[in-house]
């Protein structure tokens, strides 16, 4: 079971697509050429991504970091020479697992003190990798009401793609589907009106239709603030990132976006 089907098509003999508990399609190895398109129609994550050229953003500076050492007392996990983030800009942090992406992200968010260096900027909001960490109440309704009470934002009005929320208001947020939990977590983040959003692996384990429905939220976050996103997902980098930093062997360096996309492609295969 894997959502990122395009990387596995070479290895399988038969593809079976399930939809709402029914087998929606089945293709043998002879017809694999058409499978990708068919899968994408069904909403499975078979497809590729569209590469968008990085923009040059002129918004005000919302985050500035210089000579930062992130980690724990006595153990530096990641170093970062220089980082400037502007409003409207999406900066992706990529690199292998355990390379210090999350530690760096949390340090930039102000949840961890840097061991050295300086971090300045506006109000930050860190969104952890697991959406469950984000919820504080036992019904979706309470979450929505509390967000409205604290921020004045009604997250049920975020758009037609979010209309399902009205049918789950009395459910526990922990009982929503994985994708719905992601949506809700992102919506809560959005409502916080921060200047900088720091997202840790926001697309782990979601299929292509959900990814498509999350994209407008990313765009909305970017429009209002600066976004730093730690990710393995080549789609996120290719379609959203303006700049890319790679964290390798404990050092974060700015790299060319197209190089980073190529690196992620190879790492997946």
């Amino acid at each position, binding site marked *: 079971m894997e959502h990122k089907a395009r990387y596995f098509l070479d290895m399988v003999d038969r593809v079976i697509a399930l939809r709402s508990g029914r087998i929606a399609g089945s293709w043998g190895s002879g017809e694999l050429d058409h499978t990708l398109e068919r899968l994408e129609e069904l909403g499975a994550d078979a497809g590729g991504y569209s590469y968008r050229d990085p923009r040059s953003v002129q918004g005000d500076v919302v985050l500035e970091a210089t000579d930062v050492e992130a980690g724990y007392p006595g153990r530096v996990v990641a170093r970062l020479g220089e980082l400037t983030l502007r409003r409207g800009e999406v900066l992706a942090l990529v690199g292998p697992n355990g390379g210090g992406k999350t530690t760096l992200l*949390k340090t930039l968010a102000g*949840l961890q003190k840097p061991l050295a260096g300086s971090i300045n900027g506006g109000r930050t*909001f860190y969104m*952890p990798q697991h959406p469950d*960490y984000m919820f504080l109440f036992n019904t979706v309704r309470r979450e929505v009401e509390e967000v409205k009470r604290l921020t004045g934002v009604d997250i049920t009005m975020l758009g037609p793609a979010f209309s399902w929320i009205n049918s789950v208001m009395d459910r*526990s947020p*922990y009982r929503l589907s994985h994708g719905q939990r992601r949506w809700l977590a992102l919506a809560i983040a959005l409502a*916080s009106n921060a200047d900088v959003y720091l997202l840790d692996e926001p697309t782990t384990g979601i299929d292509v239709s959900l990814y498509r429905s999350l994209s407008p939220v990313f765009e909305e976050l970017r429009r209002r603030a600066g976004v730093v996103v730690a990710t393995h997902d080549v789609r996120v980098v290719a379609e959203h990132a303006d700049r890319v930093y790679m964290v390798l062997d404990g050092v974060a360096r700015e790299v060319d976006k197209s190089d980073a996309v190529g690196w992620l492609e190879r790492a997946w295969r």
Partner: protein
Amino acid sequence: MMQSGGLRGRGGSFSIPAVFVYAIWITVLGVATGDPGKLAVTALLTGLPGLLLGYRRFKLLVILIVFSLVGTFINMLLLYNTGDVVASIGPIVVREEAWRRTLSLDLRIVTLAGAGLLVSANISPRDAVRSLESELGLPRGLAFSLAFALRMLPLVYKDLQEVLGVRRMRGYRRIPLTPGDYRSLLMPLLSISIERGLWVGIAAELRGLSIRPRRRVRPRFKPMDLLLIALGVVQSLVVASLVGV
């Protein structure tokens, strides 16, 4: 507050069952008696060494214990300051009853905390599980639960930090003062850990947790265990009043 007990090797001076049994026995002695003179002996022979050995790895805890000793004293002064004057420190007059009761309770706290720290300082969590299962007869399933729980401890502790971070980001207090706060901390920790637990449980079931026979090992003692036995006998005799103090 928490140190996730770095896994140490098995090279301690005492055997694991000996440390366990000794600590349990001294705990029983420390609770059995309320006599300050007898408790002074257990505090000196077990409590103090335990606190000193534990101080390196559990500094914060030892400091907390010292604080609670002072706290007990203050409580007793406020509550139970009757009898002859024992001492007067500036405006504070300490009377006999407060002094005697504080002494008993504080010496007991030192004894029991020290005994507990002897276990934690000498035995890594992993060795504790192994010994409990194969040498002290803890049922297999429970040993699995304990081992799994200890393996998850650093993960759940990390979860807790994430949840506390989010609380701060969303504008709520970090310390769970009310039952509502408590629930909002508990739910995400449970939701994530249940998911982990289900898969580990299924895996354990498939590997035959319930049918694999348990391997009993006879406890292997070390020469230094004699020191623990001697200390245990001395303190038992003192508490049983065979030796006047």
